[in-house]
């Protein structure tokens, strides 16, 4: 490997890795901030749940489905006017956060809905019978009880966002995707390409591993995944 190519990797990869992380972290936070409440609304308005409301459930469900049916590349282009209006430009790392967040919010909402629905109905009724308000049930029962599953949902969202962010990089955004399009595709720099791929694999492995380990440790503490809990006395 030539000194030049080594220097190129050493300057480019950490910088674009940081850009990727920046985009992914910001859009994950926005997705949690908006997607979690939406997931809660989707859950509690469902039939037989805390605040059954068919209209809200169906309407929100359709909006979420529409959001999820866009392939990311198309969503990103379609959102250019919105991005310009919010960030001032549709190019660059910060601008990518807008389409990334918007793609992640409905995904997050569905994942959260799935996690919250795992909470046993008997337990929710127990909380009701103890005199809890709806807000107390959501904040003190639904979310804490499904926390391990929520952590896995967020992990999956982050990994999806890493994939999307690379796509954003190829279309004017920053991050590791930009290296791939500029050096791998346009200049045939195989070494740089290989390094980028390895970094991405490591990143995904790291995040998946951390999420799973955290969820598993919570589950173990709660006796799930132990034989004891499968055969209650």
């Amino acid at each position, binding site marked *: 490997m030539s000194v030049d190519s080594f220097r190129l990797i050493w300057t480019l990869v950490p910088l674009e890795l940081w850009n990727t992380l920046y985009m992914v972290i910001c859009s994950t936070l926005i997705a949690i901030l908006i997607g979690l409440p939406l997931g809660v609304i989707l859950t509690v308005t469902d039939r037989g749940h805390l605040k059954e409301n068919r209209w809200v459930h169906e309407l929100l469900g359709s909006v979420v489905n529409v959001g999820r049916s866009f392939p990311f590349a198309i969503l990103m282009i379609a959102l250019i006017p919105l991005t310009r209006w919010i960030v001032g430009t549709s190019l660059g790392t910060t601008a990518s956060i807008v389409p990334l967040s918007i793609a992640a919010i409905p995904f997050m909402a569905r994942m959260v809905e799935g996690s919250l629905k795992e909470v*046993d109905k*008997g*337990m929710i*009724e*127990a*909380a*009701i*019978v*103890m*005199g*809890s*308000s709806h807000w*107390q049930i959501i904040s*003190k*029962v639904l979310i*804490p*009880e499904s*926390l391990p599953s929520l952590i896995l949902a967020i992990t999956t969202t982050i990994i999806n966002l890493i994939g999307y962010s690379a796509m954003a990089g190829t279309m004017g955004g920053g991050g590791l995707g930009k290296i791939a399009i500029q050096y791998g595709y346009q200049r045939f720099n195989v070494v740089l390409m290989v390094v980028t791929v390895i970094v991405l694999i490591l990143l995904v492995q790291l995040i998946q591993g951390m999420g799973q380990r955290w969820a598993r440790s919570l589950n173990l*503490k*709660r*006796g*799930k995944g*132990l034989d*004891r*809990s499968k055969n*209650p*006395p």
Partner: protein
Amino acid sequence: MKEILIEIKNLSKQFPSPKEGGQPVYALNHLSLSLPRGCIYGIIGMSGAGKSTLLRCLTGLDIPSEGTVTFEGREFPYTNGQALQLFRKQMGMVFQHFQLFSSRTVGQNVAYPLEISGFTPSECEERVKEVLELVGLESKKDYHPCSLSGGEKQRAGIARALASHPSLLLCDEPTSALDPKTTRDLLQLLRTLHQHLGLTIVIITHQLEIVKQTCERVAVLADGQIVEEGEVKTIFTQPQHPITRHLLHADAEEIPEDFLKQHSPEKRRVRLGFEGMQAKEPMLSHMIKRYDVEANILSGGLESLQGTIVGHLFVELSGTAEEIERALTFLRHQHIICEEFP
């Protein structure tokens, strides 16, 4: 008569018919019942009798189609969410499957009803310690529910139900998920709590044993109605309704059918009910010695009812009509309940 804590009046709950155009199904059918304060009350019924619907109406999980429930002199506010929350905070509930929050330790579980009522953390801490001591679980405060045994889980459930000083403890099949030994310990705990705190306890169950061991009064629920109600001892020695008899196994059904068919008119079939001392005396043998009758025992049993022995015998008496009548009068004088059965 003691003061009434819960007054259920004319309570009905109907569900739409499972078949299209069919009659609606009554889970509760104009049910009325008064539960006195400071009593351990059993509500017993077979599955499908309407126990869970009754319970859901008592906690506001289901809204009755008709009738009212009055708790502490005030009518249950089924449609007013906030008032309902306040009502529920005055009842503690113990669940069949414990329903402990797995995300919380035992102590945090017990603290939950206090937290939602706005107690400060230090107040919670103090009360949690108190109730955990009450149920004998103070050493398990920082454990997660998953590491407890079934009996300990239910103790934790009771502690949680008691945390906010409820005036009523509602128990839904509290021991159905427990083994016999743990069940006895748990019922003992309920009795102790009742004695020490003067707590009103309502136990809803299909298990006769629980009522027998624990309750002072009992109501028998069948087809959405109370078919029999009264002191446990009375109900057990003189069951009136066929369902009660069935639950007590004190039914002539136990006698082989062939035998019942060969009934000769000169014989009389009588169910004898004993209680306390009489159960220990050989009354039947006294009767046979004194009078010229013969007794054929068809079926029978003895049971212990919170220290009192109660029993019943199905006998077939043969002899002359006058002699049988005199023998029965003798038994009645000995406070033995004599009822003829077909």
